[in-house]
């Protein structure tokens, strides 16, 4: 018996989402009294996994494949899970984590539960709390299968250290034929993504036009934050679709979400509500965002934001 976790990585280094999943997996393994088996691909820097109590790491060498390869990765995860008789498998809620989770579930005859927000409320049958209705509610979901794949909401468990030493095993699980082939990847390497960010700075229609986005970008730069926007902002082409957050855009579960010139429509709030602390800067005291926020400033973004950025910059130095 074992708990299997999928360690996502970037250039050979485990990502924070991967470490959170390892940390969560450790707690599950302890609850069951079983070992924690991690599966990673082409990891060069896996010492950090020791900090989070991984017992065994299958570090799979994909022979030069540099991109996430859903067919190969899901097959490897499923085979390792079968080999170690995994009862629980955990992936993160990143784009790749959510992609691979349901596929691995079918390959291993497991139930799949996404958006899990904490440790199980019950083991045997496994029951977890997860978000639904795009963060407008939670549900307690129980598995009717013996095996379960969980996708953990980011920042919902956190990193809990439990030092140990992982036994590192190699291996490869090639698939007979790949029908999907990655041709190219476009990714801003100098910016943190919304999914990975601890802080997200978001702009709405209140910013009046794309030429004013330096307000958002400068603040985000100082904070090491990702930038996001409301739906109309991306629909009008002021910002790229990849920044659109909310019910029909990306979900946000950051530690801090700063909304500037965003009214706080129900569809926007639904998508960002999982963030821990919300700050709103809006000139209209009646804007619905004030009901959802923890901290707020009623004021003109064009005046408030530059001062905030300058003061934060001074503080960081």
């Amino acid at each position, binding site marked *: 018996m074992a708990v299997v976790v999928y360690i996502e990585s970037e250039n050979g280094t485990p990502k924070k989402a991967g470490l959170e999943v390892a940390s969560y997996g450790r707690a599950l393994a302890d609850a069951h009294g079983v070992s924690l088996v991690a599966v990673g691909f082409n990891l060069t820097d896996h010492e950090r996994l020791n900090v989070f109590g991984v017992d065994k790491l299958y570090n799979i060498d994909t022979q030069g494949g540099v991109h996430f390869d*859903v*067919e190969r990765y899901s097959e490897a995860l499923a085979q390792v899970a079968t080999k170690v008789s995994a009862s629980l498998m955990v992936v993160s809620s990143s*784009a*790749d984590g*959510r*992609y691979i*989770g*349901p596929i691995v*579930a*079918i*390959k291993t005859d*497991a*139930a*799949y539960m996404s*958006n899990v927000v904490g440790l199980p409320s019950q083991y045997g049958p496994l029951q977890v709390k997860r*978000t639904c*209705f795009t963060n*407008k*509610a939670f*549900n*307690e*979901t*129980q*598995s*009717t*299968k013996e095996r379960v794949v969980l*996708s953990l909401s980011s920042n919902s468990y956190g990193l809990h250290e439990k030092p140990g030493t992982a036994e590192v095993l190699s291996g490869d699980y090639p698939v007979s034929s790949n*029908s*999907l*082939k*990655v041709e*190219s*990847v*476009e*990714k*801003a390497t100098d910016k943190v993504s919304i999914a*990975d960010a*601890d802080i997200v700075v978001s702009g709405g229609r209140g910013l009046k036009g794309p030429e004013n986005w330096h307000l958002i970008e400068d603040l985000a730069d100082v904070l090491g934050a990702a930038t996001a926007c409301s739906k109309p902002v991306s*629909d009008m082409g002021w910002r790229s*679709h*990849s920044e659109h957050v909310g*019910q*029909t855009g990306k979900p946000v579960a950051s*530690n*801090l979400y700063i909304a500037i010139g965003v009214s706080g429509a129900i569809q926007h709030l*639904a998508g960002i509500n999982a963030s*821990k*602390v919300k*700050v709103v800067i809006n000139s209209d005291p009646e804007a619905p965002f*004030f*009901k959802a926020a923890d*901290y707020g*400033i*009623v004021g003109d973004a064009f*005046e408030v934001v530059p*001062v*905030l950025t300058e*003061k*934060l910059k001074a*503080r960081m130095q």
Partner: protein
Amino acid sequence: MNILVCISNVPDTTSKINFKEENTAFETQGVQFIINPNDEFGLTRAVWFQQKVGAKVTVVNVGDASCEPILRKCLAIGADQALRVDLQPKDGFEVATQLAAICKKESYDLIITGRESIDYNGGMVGGMLATLLEIPYVANCIQMDIASDEVSVQREIDGGKESLSATLPLVIGAQKGLVEEKDLIIPNMRGIMQARQKPLEVVPPEAAAPASKVQAFEKPAEKGPVKLVDAEDIDGLIDLLENEAKVL
């Protein structure tokens, strides 16, 4: 080309979410149901292929009779025919199992699901369906083109996008980007009239069990009031974020 678009019936995005029967069921009273927005982006792309290359577009829903109005709407938007698997599903696995049975009866070149439904947010139907059918799946699909048997697709990834080549048959998880908001088709009178004549077939479900069940729903705790900081007192805000919220 034969396209199947899988449609979920979900509460309108402005709906107030309430529960009944001691928080074990969703209160549908007073709730307006719509085509799941991600599915609608997919359907719109399918109708585009129908108009450009003569693809045949079938829509399918796994649900009870209350889902028929949205299937009629899909027909009014342009789908050629509709299927309804007569079952109130308990989880995404059950939906995927029923859809797999449909796909084994008739062969589809392209199967489109939404990235996720906005009610249960399971995000599993597309990936499970593809795996059950042993064909590939592209999640978070934001672009798709087909030239003879060559398919090029784009997948949104965290912080960017990935371009892939693929082959048919294929399952994709649709979202905004596959078509834009402005491309969505608002049915006109002619479309609505035609939809009444188009076939909507009710199919009995296969015997299959769900993989999970919802035990109870819960609403998030009421939030305390916002702490307002004066627009002149930016230091005050920084202090609160640093020392009270501890997020800096």
